[in-house]
Structures are given as C-alpha cells and as structure tokens.
C-alpha cells in the first residue's frame, strides 16, 4: 500500500525515511478488523455523530444549518517526542502573542522601537480603540489560543495561522474522541493515547481564576452569536461540558457597569464571559454600532473592572498573517528566546524590499489582506499562480496602490495522511489545529487537536466550510494514562438550584414553544391516523361521494389545505401530511418541532434529541404503490406517534423539575388544551351525522377510547364523551385536565396570569353537562349553543394567557439604535 504523494511529506513515515512503527501498528490493527467490520463501525460513528447532533453550519449550504460533522476512521498519530516539540512551540507562541497584545493595547513601545510596523495596528480594523488601556486580569489578553500547523516536504512543522479572536474546534476534537473511543474501543486499549480531559479542567480553573474582584464562585457564561453560527454545536457542547451558561447577547444586560444574565428569577451578575463572538460585535455602543448581537455598555463594564472577557476584546488583531514576518525578532525582544517553530514564510508588503520581492514572485505566492481580521473587512486569499497574466497585473496594481494592506506567503506543500473513503485508504492533505489555554503563569496545551483533511487528493485547501473531514488526533504517551472526564457530572442538589436560577428568558421561551410544538404534532398525527383509517376502509370510494367524516373534521380544523378542485382527495390528504412546503401541514409542524428542539438543544437530553432527529428523517412521503399509499401512510403515522410520545416522555421525564421543565409543561398544557378545544369545535357543535362514527373518531383522536370503554363499558354517547374530553380533570387528555395542570404550573411563577386560568377552569367546571350537551334551535339548524359559547371563551382565553406569560417573562424587545443619527447640519 503506497499512500505517499510525490512532493509531500507522508505522515506515516519517520524523519529517517523508515515507516513509523506506530502507524504500521495502527494500519495492521485496522486491517485486522477487516473491511466489512470497518465499514460497519464507520456507519455507527456517522450515526452517533448525527444522533448527537454534531453539526458544522455551512454558510450558503442548501442543507442549511444542520450539516453533520465529518469524522474520518483513521486517527492522526503523533509520537511523544514530536509532540513535545509542538507543545513547547505552541506555548511559546501563545505567550509571545499575549505580550504583543499587552503592548499594543498598552504602552505601544513596540511601535516606538520599530519592532512592529504602526500600520499593522493603526490601519487595522481589528485594533479596537475603545479597548486601549483597559485593565485585564493578570495582564493577560489571551486566555485561549490555537495555532494551525502544517508540515512541509522536509518534515518541518510550520505555523500557518494564529487564532486569537475566539478559537474554535476544541469541542469538535473532544467529540471526535468520544465517538472514536466508542466505535474503536480496542484501539484505545492497544495505544497509549493521551487523554483530553485535563485540558478542559485547566480551562475551567483558568476561567474561574480570571473573575474580577477575586470572586469565589464566579458566574461564567459562554457568549455565542446564536444557533446560526457555524460552530454553534460546539458552543452548546462546550458550555455543557465546562458547566457554563450558554448566553446570547440578548440574554445579557449592563446595569451600573455590571453585566447581568436575564433569567426568569431576575438578573444574575456575570463575572466572566467566555467569548465565542467576534469582539466588534460585542458592544453596539462603543464597538460596531450596527451589531444586533451585542451587549450595550459591555466595554464600560470591562473598563470598570466588573467583568472579564476572554479573550479580551481586541485580541483578534494579531490574527493578521502580516505579524508573522516580525515574530522571530519580537520573540527575541520580548521573551529573550528564539522562536521555536517558524511561521510560514511571510512578506509584509508595507516595506519596500518585501514589496519588490512579492511583485517579482507573484506567481509563486499566496496573497492575503494584511488588515483583515474583522469579518466585515476580510478577504479571500489569492493564489498568484492561478491567475492569468492580466489578472496578475491587476493584482500587482492593487498591491502597489496600498502595499501595507497586503501580505504574501509561501504556499505550503501540505503533508498527507491516510484517510478512509468507500474505496479504502487515500492520501489527503492535512492541517493540524493545536489548542492552548492559560495555566496561571504558563500555558497548557491540549494533548491532541483537530486534524482536518482536504476533501480531495489534489486539493490543498483544508476547510470545514469546504467539506473537508476531520480526524481524531492521538498524541501517544509512553504509557497509559488514568481516566478523567468532566462529562457525566452527577448533578448535586446545589447544581439543580443553580441551573434553575440561570434559566434565561430566551431559553424558557424556546422550551415553551417546544412543548407546544410536540403537542401540535401529536394532535396532528392522531387526527390523520383517524383519516387514513377511514380512507383505507373504503378504498373504492366514488370521487363525488361526500367527504368521509374524519376528513371533514380535519378540513374544518384547517389542517387540510386549500381545495384546488382538481386533486383527488387522497392526494390532498397526503399533501396535508407529508408536504413540508404546505403551510400548516403535519410535515411542516414536524420540521418546526425539530427546529425548536434544535434551539433548545442544550436543555433537552441527548436521547430526546436523537428520537426527534429520527422522526424528522423518517417523515417523508412513502414511495409505494398508489393503491397502498393510505395503508403505508398509516404505518408511518403509527411509528411517528410512538416517536413523538418517546420524545415527550424523554424530554419531560429526563428533566429535573426546574423552571425549564415548568415552561416545557406550560407549553404542552396550553397547546393540548387548544387542540382539544379546536377538535370539539369541529365535531360536536351540530347534531351528529346519521350513522357516523364521529364519537369513536373523536375518542380515538383524543386517545381516550380505552378510558371510555373501561369506564362506561358502553358504546359512545355524547354527554359521556363530552364529560370525558372537556370536563373530567382526571383524564389527562381532557381540556379540564390541561387547565388545572396549567393552574398548578403557574403557581411557581409570580407574574403569571393566574386569574385568567382560574376563570376558564371555573367556566368548564360550573357549566352543567346537560346544558353543554343540549341542542338549541338556531337559524343554522339545531346547535349546542352553550357548548359553543364555552368553547369560544376557551378559544379566546387560551391565547390571552399565552400573551400574558410572554409579556411577563419572555418578551424580547429589539434593540434599536438612536444615532449617531443626526448631523451637525440642519437636515
């Protein structure tokens, strides 16, 4: 098996040219498993990643926000000696970059002493002037750092990128390890792979240590731009793993120069913000004014020393590749050492000699903007060799016009590493991202990392945005290490109280809607099950026959979609169930439920998430013979019902009885009551059709047939059905049960609309059953007018309760900016 690519270093070969023993051992082990077994294991890994909801959001991808994370079967191996070199180099570099930031945001001696070109600071949009002179705890700006490393054909490692803004990927590295150790347990017994947990422990300690005013048990939040960010999965995952509250900008507010988390139980002071959002988006008052994601006043709170932001606001500045040209001399100057690992060869065009070199070698170089680093001013790298002569001239012109804005770098011929695909192992180019976190005076480097490989053999572009896969990265220890993990933290009583206190209004809102969504789906599944039962009972129904009763009911409830006249009834029903594009269809409700669960993913158990993912995947129109469509649909609905029930059961049962649970329950009760009212309105207001099975359908749709039979041992009779479905507070499917449950749930909330709920409950309890069941003559024929009026009150009262709750607890007014809106001139 030859996996080398001419002109590139092969990771499986030792520096002396001999095959690496560790790699050989790994390949043997993989081969020992056999191809079939490997493929099976890989299917399992893929399923695990999908079930765990490990995603990487790709901008502009038609699959949208939910692209599964790609993990390759073959890990990347690094032996202890090699790792020692990388570890020392990354620590040193983190320290160096932190010192540079300290100077740039402080005395700026490096500029006066000509060690760093002032252009790279003053002309850089990432130099955040409001953050100059801000005190940072321990003098550190950088708390988390990552370096992208690549290996050249001679076996030398180079740093090709520095990540100081909000380094991403350590969470993916961790998840890669979790999945890998589950599908390849025997390999971990065979290889002494260094464990990752110590790094995250250090991470936790480090975040606690930087709390201002030496607070003993600081509140730490992970600030995320939200679910649409490319690495949102990681934000949710890391916050859970590190025990931090996941917060969006809108969850935080500044009062009196302190940052607070908006929770259902009021404002909770925040001491440390682990920032996964670019700094200029963080405070619309002093930083980028257009940011809707920011926390107005945050910079003032930092200035006042009341909150620590990690990495410090402004740290993104040193991500510019231009700085690499100056690191060797800066390292000697600031640390008194030689730089341990070189950066890829870099020429900053702001100096005449480097400009000349760049222009003379344009075809061999990669050109990048030197002053990017802010997402609003970034630019793609340009490969000079890929340009036509005319394009190259145009590029040269642009560089000459603004030389300080350009940096040229050598192309690295990336090393290759064996990577699995359907046809076996293939060489792929790779980049290794290594992470470091502050550890008091020094740095702790994650013994592992995120290895990413190119998507094709020939591509030298390694990017998760472009579909490249990742690898678990194994640093081999001399011997096996003891097991440590932060994951299955058994929650103590204190933790429960704490998590309840930190429930943000946004999360509560998501949970309420999640509860509503699951009930809406369940009600829909039950209704359509009744429809398909009816349809499959009479497969030869003539086209002009009246609508089957259950279809009539569904139509009245607005779930059938518009009647275009042409389509056969069965097609209309199928569309109402399976057509995701049709508003209000069952499929659309399921997609919405999936989305809601996704928004609340850090709050619901992994199992309930998994069930819902399956439901969403399965819920597609059955491709079967037309004659069997109804029965196939019935089967899908039967399965779906079990899945929805499993989801609700898992979500509700696996949650501690905290405020989060309360809101999920409130949502469920509200929606189930609403669905019940709508169902009764659609079925019982008029005299029942002759010979109809409507009462049976109704009992079935409300999952109360069994209760009815057990209780009354009789065929369905209207007053008894009405009692069971509307009034009976012991039947978990009745409207009355939902109202009394709502009443109970709302007791925990001080600002809830208690009176409105009790009024509705009284209305249901106090109206005599015989009046509810009685038909009165009206212009439209006999109708149950008392029932109609009670149901109408419920139908208007329930949304009002939802609104009142929303206003008291959940409302999110949008932030708006007032100025700098006026000009010094009369307009």
């Amino acid at each position, binding site marked *: 098996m030859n996996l080398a690519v001419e002109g590139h270093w092969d990771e499986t070969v030792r520096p002396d040219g001999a095959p690496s023993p560790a790699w050989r051992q790994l390949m043997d082990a993989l081969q020992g498993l056999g191809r079939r077994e490997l493929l099976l294991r890989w299917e399992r890994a893929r399923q695990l990643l999908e079930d765990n909801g490990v995603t990487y959001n790709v901008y502009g991808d038609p699959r949208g926000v939910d692209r599964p994370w790609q993990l390759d079967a073959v890990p990347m191996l690094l032996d202890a000696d090699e790792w020692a070199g990388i570890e020392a180099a990354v620590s040193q570099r983190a320290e160096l970059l932190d010192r540079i930031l300290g100077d740039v945001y402080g005395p*700026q001696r490096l*500029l*006066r*002493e*000509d060690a760093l070109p*002032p*252009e790279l600071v*003053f*002309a850089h949009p990432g130099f955040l*002037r*409001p953050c*100059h*002179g801000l005190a940072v705890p321990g003098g550190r700006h950088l708390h988390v750092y990552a370096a992208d490393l690549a290996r050249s054909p001679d076996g030398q490692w180079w740093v090709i990128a520095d990540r100081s803004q909000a380094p991403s990927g350590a969470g993916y590295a961790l998840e890669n390890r979790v999945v890998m150790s589950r599908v390849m347990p025997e390999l971990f017994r065979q290889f002494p792979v260094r464990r990752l947990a110590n790094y995250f422990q250090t991470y936790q300690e480090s975040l606690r240590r930087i709390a201002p005013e030496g607070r003993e048990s600081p509140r730490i939040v992970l600030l995320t731009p939200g679910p649409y960010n490319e690495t949102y999965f990681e934000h949710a995952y890391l916050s859970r793993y590190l025990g931090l509250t996941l917060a969006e900008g809108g969850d935080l*507010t*500044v*009062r*009196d*120069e302190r940052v607070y988390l908006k929770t259902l139980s009021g404002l909770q002071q925040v001491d440390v913000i682990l920032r996964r959002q670019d700094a200029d988006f963080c405070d*619309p*008052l*002093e930083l980028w*004014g257009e940011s809707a994601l920011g926390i*107005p*006043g945050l910079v*003032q709170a930092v*200035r006042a020393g009341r909150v620590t932001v990690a990495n410090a606001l402004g740290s993104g500045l040193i991500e510019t590749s231009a700085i690499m040209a100056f690191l060797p001399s800066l390292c000697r100057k600031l640390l008194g050492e030689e730089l341990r690992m070189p950066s890829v060869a870099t020429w900053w065009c702001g100096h005449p000699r480097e400009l000349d070199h760049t222009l003379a070698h344009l075809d061999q170089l990669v050109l990048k903007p030197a002053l990017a680093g802010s997402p609003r001013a970034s630019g793609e790298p340009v490969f000079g060799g890929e340009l036509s002569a005319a394009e190259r001239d145009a590029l040269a012109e642009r560089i000459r*016009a*603004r030389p300080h804005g350009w940096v040229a770098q050598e192309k690295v011929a990336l090393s290759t590493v064996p990577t699995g695909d359907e046809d076996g192992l293939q060489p792929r180019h790779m980049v290794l991202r290594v992470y470091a976190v502050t550890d008091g005076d020094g740095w702790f480097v994650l013994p592992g990392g995120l290895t990413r490989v190119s998507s094709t053999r020939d591509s030298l572009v390694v990017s998760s945005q472009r579909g490249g896969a990742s690898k678990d990265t194994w640093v081999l220890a001399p011997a096996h290490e003891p097991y440590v993990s932060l994951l299955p933290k058994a929650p103590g009583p204190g933790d429960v109280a704490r998590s309840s206190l930190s429930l943000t209004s946004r999360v509560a809102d998501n949970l309420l809607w999640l509860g509503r969504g699951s009930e809406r789906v369940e009600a829909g599944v039950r209704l359509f099950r009744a429809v398909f039962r009816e349809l499959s009972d009479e497969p030869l129904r003539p086209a002009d026959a009246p609508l089957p009763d259950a279809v009539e009911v569904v139509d009245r409830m607005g779930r059938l979609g518009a009647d275009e006249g042409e389509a056969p009834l069965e097609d209309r029903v199928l569309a109402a169930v399976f057509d995701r594009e049709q508003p209000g269809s069952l499929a659309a409700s399921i997609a919405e439920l999936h989305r809601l669960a996704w928004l609340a993913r850090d709050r619901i158990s992994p199992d309930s998430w998994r069930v819902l993912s399956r439901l969403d995947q399965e819920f597609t129109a059955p491709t079967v013979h037309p004659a069997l469509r109804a029965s196939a649909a019935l089967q899908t609905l039967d399965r779906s019902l079990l899945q929805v029930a499993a989801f609700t059961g898992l979500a509700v049962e696996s949650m501690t009885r905290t405020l989060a649970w309360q809101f999920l329950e409130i949502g469920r009760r509200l929606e189930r009551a609403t669905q019940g009212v709508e169902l009764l309105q659609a079925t019982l207001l008029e005299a029942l059709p002759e010979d109809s099975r409507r009462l049976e359908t109704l009992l079935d749709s409300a999952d109360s047939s069994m209760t009815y039979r057990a209780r009354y041992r009789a065929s369905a009779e209207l007053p008894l059905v009405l009692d069971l479905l509307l009034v009976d507070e012991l039947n978990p499917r009745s409207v009355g049960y939902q109202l009394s449950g709502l009443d109970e749930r709302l007791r925990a909330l001080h600002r809830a609309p208690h009176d409105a709920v009790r009024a509705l409950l009284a209305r249901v309890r106090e109206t005599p059953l015989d009046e509810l069941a009685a038909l009165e003559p009206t212009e439209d024929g006999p109708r149950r007018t008392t029932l109609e009026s009670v149901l109408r009150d419920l139908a208007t009262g329930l949304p009002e309760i939802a609104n009142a709750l929303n206003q008291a607890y959940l409302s999110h*007014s949008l*932030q*708006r*900016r*007032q*100025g*700098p*809106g*006026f*000009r*010094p*001139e*009369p*307009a």
Partner: protein
Amino acid sequence: MTQNDAPNGTQASTANATPSSGPHGTRYDVVHETRYAYSEAAFTSHNVAHLMPRATDWQRLEGLELRIDPSPPTVQWQPDYFGNDVVFFTILEPHDKLVVRVESSVELLPRPELSLTQSPAWEDVATRLRSDRDETTLHAYEMAFESPFVPRGEPFADYARASFTAGRPLAKALLDLNARIHREFRYDPEATTLATPIAQVLEERHGVCQDFAHLMIGCLRSLGLPARYVSGYLRSADPKPDADPQPDADAEPGAEGLVGSEASHAWVSAWCPENGWIDVDPTNDVVPSDRHIVLGWGRDYDDVSPLKGVTLGGGAHTVSVEVSARPIEASP
C-alpha cells in the same frame, strides 16, 4: 451649520477678526440640547456623549453644566482614546423622552499665527511620517489611514494634487485645497445624508460641512498625510435688536438670529511637524481662530459623534437638536 461666505479673493485668509474679540480672547456661552421623543415607552437606554468642549492651548473651558432628563442614576466621565472627554450614562426607568442639555462657557485665546514659510515640502512630511517613530509623529501617523467614514483612494489623491504640487510647502498646499473645496463644492443640506460616501460627494460636488471635512481628510490621507476630524461649534449670528425682515446682503445664511442646530460645525486638522496641527475649515475657506469652538477630534465623525445610544423599546422616535454659541461681551 452655516456656510460663511468668506470674502472672495482672499482665499488664504488666516483669521477673521470679529467685533467681540478682546485682548483676553473671546468668550462664548454654548448651549447644545438634544431631545428624543419616543412613540412608545423606552426601557433602558445606554448612551455615550461627546459634548464637553475640549481644553486646548487656545481654548479654556470655564464652566459646564450637563442636564439629563430623565436623570440617570450615574454619569461617568471618561477620556476617550483621543483624549476627548466623554460622558457615559444609562437610563433604567421607562421614559418617553430623553433630553440631554449641555451649557458651557468657553474662552478662545488667540492662536499662534500660521507660518507658511516654516512649512516643509509636503512630500517630506509624508516620508518622515513613515519612518519617524517618536511619540508625536506616531500619533500623527495614526491619522493617515482609512477610517469608517473616510476611505483613501486615487480619486481623492488626484483631486488633491492640483493643490499639492511637487515640493510645495504643506501649509500652502493645505490652504489652497481648503479654498478649492470651498469654491468648487456647493453647500447643500438637502443633497447628502450621513450615509453619503465621500466618493459621491467628490463626484457630485455638493454637501455640508461634515462631507467637506471628510472629503478633505480623505484627500490628505490619500497623499499619505495625516488629518483629523474636528467636531465643534461655529459662532452663532448675533441677534439683531430690531428684527429686520431683510437680512443684510453680506450676512451669513442663517444669520437671521435664529437659535438652532446651525451652530454645530465640523472641520479639519492637518499635521505638519513644524506647525503641529493646523485647523482649516473647507466649508468656509478659513483658518479657524476666534469663531470656532472645539468639542473634540478623532479620525472621523464616528469617533466623536455628539450623542450615540442604544435603546430598548421606544418604538418610533423623533430627534430635535438646538445649538447656539453666543459671544459674551467682555466685562468692562
């Protein structure tokens, strides 16, 4: 603000004497009131204001009163990156209006005469700027790059080169550019908004003082020269004891004695190693002296906008601004 029809033909006027300048300088009472009215209750509002006249070698701040309604629990004074005094305040109670009123007394002392002969060739200044690393030069260099409202580019350099001919002393070239912008651009408050890019201003040749200041800064920076944006006030017209329906032919527009936002103004400061920072006002083709009161400076408007805020709630809002800068007669 006002466009001052400076006397034609004296393009390089360095000062314009006014009746109320005394031996000890000219004193002003400045009032700047900004009033927001909201259609719905605003809940919290975080604000940052650049509304305190800056003390300089030739400007003394003699008194300042800041009134904010509703009254914020705390008000923080804080110098910004450029040394301007900034006020931070937060309103936490529901409010349907926000009024920020600053009254200040300022004395303008005579500025040193601008010496044109001392000024070095502008190319030398650009060259030294790139190589010298002393603190003063570095501070100046920081003002030579793009900023949010001011791009650099060949069209701006090109426009400037008619004034910045080879070897011309920087101060002379600067005054020439100042006069050209005044002459070649039409003052038109309707033509542009805050969002109009200066490339469009250059192309269409009209705008207001802010546009002219940004444009001139862009011209200078495109030649590699430092320039900063100065936010301030221009002396209001004197109220007339007898209301005269016909304004004097040579009076400034807005000279009807109205108090309004017309006194807010913006101009440019350019740097020359020998002269330090030289203020020029391209809207009026003058070198500011005893009629220009400085609030503060930065790279462009974005750094020194008088009042910026982020409000939660509030619905639609209207804003009105009242500014006056009135000279006070020196006490006998």
